[in-house]
């Protein structure tokens, strides 16, 4: 054995160094003790000890969402891996590039129902982009290289590498491959030029063009290209929940978010347009509602996506363009600069119609002197942070209000679980985001139900001095569940009431943080100002806003209905 032979555990660590990993989020256990021993003896990345494996994966996920880099989580076998599954599925649904390393029982014990054994590769198979079980120390380095490559390329996604304990103790020579080639995996980057030209001509010819952008624009770092293209084209644009920030929300061409809780103008323009350009979006049920109703108004649909299986999945596409959004948009911009087009004078009637829809002022809400309106809290948060904070959210009404009332002008500022809709992500998302951006303002918009799903992470925040500001919109209900029960279940609030809530102020304090309880509308702004003041710059502040219990999220497209069948607040 040569002197350059190192243990499998050290090989894992060296691979992470080669990938220039800055943070590993994890939790130790029997099967990963060798790896943790190697973590202990290095200082090139920081290990962030969470309090539950789910949070490790969420935090690594948010690190990726807010930076564009691959997030890394490290968990042990059995319960460590099963606890990680929710986090992995969350990242998978939103196409987040991640590498999850899980320990496994020794190779000779696999299949023997050993202590803390589970079929991790089998359990995670449906919710990863790909996974590997490494059975030979010789394969660790090449597998890690493949894992990072697969996670980050094409349509990104989480990749799991399961490593049995005995492999991490053996010794082998370390050599990290410079390149990786998989004959079975060759994502298409460049779009078809003929299709791109055809798409542009259709858009220039359109009387009622519309752009619908999704999470793919954010993931593909194509915001600048999209913004340039849409501004030159002069068309209106909307964005999905996942795409917010991909086009500046303050631009007058932006119609707000679309979908179930989208704006009236965005949904109507989607329905009434004649040529629709979808960029990195996937026409999912929360976005277009009923697909038949959506297509009942004839329109020509162009779809740019890196994943061929996203095209014509729910809606038949007329002009499919498979490719990386940044590459296709760059080509569209190049073509557009060559075309001598008039500055869309013909779009005036279209915008006139849109302005009429806009005049419904669908996000208007009535402020109250006594009760704190959740929308008002978000608006004030926007004002106090000058619209420049990273906002993470949990899932439910507060998530929709954050999306509606905190306009994002930059990508990667809005961190939430769109596809899987995982309650509990908010706090670990804020952790991953704050670690990636130590000097930035990071606010976690949550509710009293969601926050309790990962509340133990307040301890992690203390350990790593994360000055997150938690905006707890406390309405003593699982708000979105209650809203559906009010609308569709005859006000029968089955199990949606949060009884026996903790005193969040004391809870925060017991973890060593600052707690505030805000009960009056007039206290909202002063409290937020204080939380974001330089005095509390270094501290986590848990702000418990006691809000109007019965406030609902509007507009709303009821499940299974069409985009133009919205309920607007005044309708009720």
């Amino acid at each position, binding site marked *: 054995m040569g002197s350059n032979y190192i243990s499998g555990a050290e090989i894992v660590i060296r691979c992470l160094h080669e990938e220039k990993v800055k943070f590993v989020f994890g939790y130790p256990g029997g099967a990963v003790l060798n790896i943790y021993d190697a973590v202990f003896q290095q200082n090139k990345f920081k290990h962030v000890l969470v309090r539950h494996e789910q949070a490790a994966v969420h935090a690594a996920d948010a690190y990726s969402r807010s930076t564009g880099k691959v997030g890394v989580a490290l968990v042990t076998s059995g319960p460590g891996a099963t606890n990680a599954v929710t986090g992995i599925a969350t990242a998978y649904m939103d196409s987040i590039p991640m590498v999850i390393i899980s320990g496994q029982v020794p190779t000779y014990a696999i299949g023997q129902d050993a202590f803390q054994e589970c079929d991790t590769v089998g359990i995670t*198979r*449906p919710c990863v982009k790909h996974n590997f*079980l490494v059975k030979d120390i010789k394969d660790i380095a090449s597998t890690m290289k493949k894992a990072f490559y697969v996670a980050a390329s094409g349509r990104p996604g989480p990749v799991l590498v399961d490593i049995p304990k005995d492999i991490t103790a053996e010794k082998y020579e370390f050599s990290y491959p410079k390149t990786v080639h998989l004959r079975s995996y060759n994502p298409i980057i460049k779009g078809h030029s003929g299709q791109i030209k055809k798409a542009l001509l259709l858009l220039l010819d359109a009387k009622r063009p519309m752009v619908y952008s999704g999470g793919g624009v954010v993931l593909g770092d194509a915001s600048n290209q999209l913004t340039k293209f849409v501004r030159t084209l002069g068309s209106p644009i909307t964005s999905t929940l996942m795409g917010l920030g991909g086009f500046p929300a303050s631009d007058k061409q932006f119609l707000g978010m679309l979908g179930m809780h989208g704006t009236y103008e965005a949904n109507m323009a989607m329905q009434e347009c004649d040529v629709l350009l979808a960029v990195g979006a996937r026409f999912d049920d929360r976005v277009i509602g009923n697909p038949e109703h959506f297509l009942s108004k004839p329109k020509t649909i162009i779809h740019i996506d890196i994943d*061929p*299986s996203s095209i*014509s*999945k729910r809606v038949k596409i007329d002009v499919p363009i498979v490719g990386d959004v940044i590459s296709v948009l760059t080509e569209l911009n190049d073509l557009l600069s060559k075309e001598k087009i008039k500055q869309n004078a013909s779009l005036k009637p279209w915008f006139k119609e849109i302005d009429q829809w806009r005049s419904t002022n669908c996000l208007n809400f009535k402020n109250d002197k006594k009760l704190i309106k959740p929308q008002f809290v978000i608006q004030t948060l926007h004002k106090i942070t000058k619209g420049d904070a990273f906002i993470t959210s949990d899932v439910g009404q507060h998530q929709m209000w954050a999306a509606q009332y905190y306009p994002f002008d930059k990508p990667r500022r809005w961190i939430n679980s769109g596809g899987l809709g995982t309650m509990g992500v908010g706090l670990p998302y804020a952790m991953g985001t704050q670690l990636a951006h130590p000097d930035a303002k990071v606010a976690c918009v949550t509710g009293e139900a969601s926050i309790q799903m990962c509340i133990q992470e307040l301890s992690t925040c203390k350990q790593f001095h994360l000055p997150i500001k938690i905006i707890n919109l406390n309405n003593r209900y699982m708000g979105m569940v209650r809203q559906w029960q009010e609308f569709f279940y005859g006000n029968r609030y089955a199990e949606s009431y949060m009884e026996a809530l903790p005193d969040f102020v004391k809870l925060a304090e017991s973890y060593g943080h600052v707690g505030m309880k805000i009960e009056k509308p007039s206290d909202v702004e002063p409290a937020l100002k204080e939380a974001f003041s330089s005095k509390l710059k270094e501290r986590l502040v848990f702000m418990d806003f006691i809000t109007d219990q019965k406030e609902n999220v509007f507009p709303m497209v009821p499940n299974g209905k069409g985009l133009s069948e919205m309920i607007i607040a005044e309708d009720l």
Partner: protein
Amino acid sequence: MRHIISLLMENESGALSRVSGLFSARGYNIESLTVAPTEDPTLSRMTIVTSGSDEIIEQIIKQLNKLIDVVKVLDLNDGRFIERELMIVKVKANAQYRDEMKRMCDIFRGRIIDVSDSSFTIEITGSSSKLDAYIESIDEAAILETVRTGASGIGRGDRILKV
């Protein structure tokens, strides 16, 4: 419509469950699925018989292509192809059935591969529909046991699925 999909994939553990898992997770039909290594031991060839509308078949092909281990996918129904399935069937061959079973075996160009006083074991190859036709042609009461491999398919002439 019934489609026969051929695919080449990395011959690695778990590859089969990635494909079968995809079909169950997305609610696609599998009529039959066969898999075995090819002349290149690093590759497995799989034949999947499925059915669905054109849109569903298009999605199935795309989803299969998306699996990292899948090297190539071909919908054999996009061109001319040959389909074969092997069936081994054990039938009653007592005095009442013996002549009839021999005759039906000949008609379907099967071969009797095992004989006892009371039974024949017959092998028959052909398209899945030919095998169905054989089963329908003989007296149900005479069938003791059947085992089928599921269909394998290959393109005609110059249509070649290879890496």
